[in-house]
């Protein structure tokens, strides 16, 4: 049983500038599916998708459906919002694995 199991729709982040809002849900056996809208799509869209995928991969998640609305967030913000959305979806509200979280935030 993997540590992080996507269970229910969850959301993290806001629509403020320099933030990203990430909604996550189950995507049974369909892999990672990211629907991204970004104000910096042409310059950073590719990198934002990579950052989200990398973070999900770090968390051992192979299947998830994400809708992300980005307003020019830096990578650290994107990672933090992804981690938060996953935790909420998994219903984890205590005993966070701080050591692992720290290692993902590079």
């Amino acid at each position, binding site marked *: 049983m993997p540590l992080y199991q996507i269970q229910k729709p969850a959301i993290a982040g806001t629509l403020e*500038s*320099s933030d990203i809002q990430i909604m996550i849900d189950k995507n049974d056996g369909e892999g990672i599916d990211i629907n991204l809208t970004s*104000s*910096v*799509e*042409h*310059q*950073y*869209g*590719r*990198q934002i998708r990579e950052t989200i995928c990398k973070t999900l991969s770090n968390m051992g998640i192979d299947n998830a459906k994400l809708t992300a609305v980005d*307003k*020019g*967030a*830096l*990578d650290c913000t994107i990672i933090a919002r992804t981690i938060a959305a996953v935790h909420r979806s998994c219903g984890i509200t205590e005993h966070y694995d701080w050591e692992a979280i720290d290692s993902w935030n590079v």
Partner: protein
Amino acid sequence: METVKNAVGREIPKEYADQYGVFEGQYARKNEYRRAAGKVVPTLPGETKLVSSLREAIEKSGLKDGMTISFHHHFREGDYVLNMVMEEIAKMGIKNLKLAASSIANVHEPLIEHIKSGVITEITSSGLRDKVGSAISHGLMEKPVVIRSHGGRARAIESGEIHIDVAFLGASSADPYGNANGSQGNATCGSLGYAKVDAEYADKVVIITDHLVDYPNTPISISQTLVDYVVVVDAIGNPDGIAKGATRFTSDPKELLIAENACKVITASPYFKDGISFQSGSGGSTLAVTRFLAEKMRESGITAGYLLGGITSNMVELLEEGLAKKILDTQTFDRGAAASIARNENHYEISASFYANPGNKGAAVNQLDVVMLSALEVDTDFNVNVMTGSDGVIRGASGGHSDTAAGAKLSLILCPLLRGRIPTIVEQVNTVITPGEGIDVVVTEVGIAVNPRRKDLQEALKNAGVNLFTMEELKNKAYALAGTPDPIEYGDKVVALIEYRDGSLIDVVRQVKR
């Protein structure tokens, strides 16, 4: 596509390079020419210039297919004149017009329809905002738009490269014989600096006003001797869109830090002495610099010789406090400053040619000590982009950027390291408006870089204890935070030609690939 590389390394398609010549350096051209003059039909005693409608003015002006028409942008986002005139022209079925507006604002979005329907087929302007700029960047027009600086436009008009057949000039007050100004009436905009050039060189000049006064209307910004027709309409503009009531100071700590850094640079430079002249824009940081600089001037007992611009009410305050002796005003940014031009003898209205034309016998920018400018992007060669966004889409304006940078002894760029995730300091700007050789110092919130051409300034700043970075270092700081941006993909079609102020091509903008 065969191209010619210019002095800032930009590839200019050969057909345009042959037509305009390519940029070879900011002072490379010093050509003799004969000024082009407009046609004149005398007005005899007893004849009237007052016509009953816009339609009648257009008919009497003799406007025909293929001609060039002009407008000024002193009414900014509050302008009704351009849309009103274009709608009437479109109704009359006139086609293939060349639009030579001093600039184009968001409010001029109806232009997109006039382009689609073939009423307008060519455009020259300083700027193109949001929707019009975006439509053009996506290939709306067959012929590329020609972007000119304020000084470059005046030069092109005076040399005859732009020949205006009919100028439609809004004025907040006018008399029936055509004497017009922008400082009285309802829709006041202050200086009519851009319009003055059009009035002098156009074949036909139509003054459009909503405030007709008795003859003679003074002060005379545009003279009766240049005007053919006067039309009265209900409203020429929305005062709230023309100018803000008062320009407020920023409370953004990042902008204040940039301003503080810029103030350090100016006070440490050899130009900070009695009689200093400067121009500052209307942006948050540059307004704040003026305030910091004023404090330093009071402390040091220094008085400015003149202020140039782009005038805001805080510059008027310097004048009225006695910290500045004169203001030379080609464009007035707020109502406080517009009121001053009517009230203060030493707040003097100048034309765009007087302000910045590199082709006349001496522009005001040549006398300038310090200019503070903004930037969408600056690259490691100090080249500046104020035209296209980081997504490659046209949204800005050339303005007086390259004019003042070339003229001033010290030109500073004030910009944040990043805007959101978008680096301002980049490896290579999307579009070059001002060449790096005209930029002396780049000031950000994290550090200051001096152009290596200016060893004297580097020394002066080091001696004053200012910590300096290279542009490469600033760029690396930006990229470390934001990541290296992916390059924008462009197609082959050229959608805009960027003229340097001397008429040579410094860059082109290509259609974005989406």
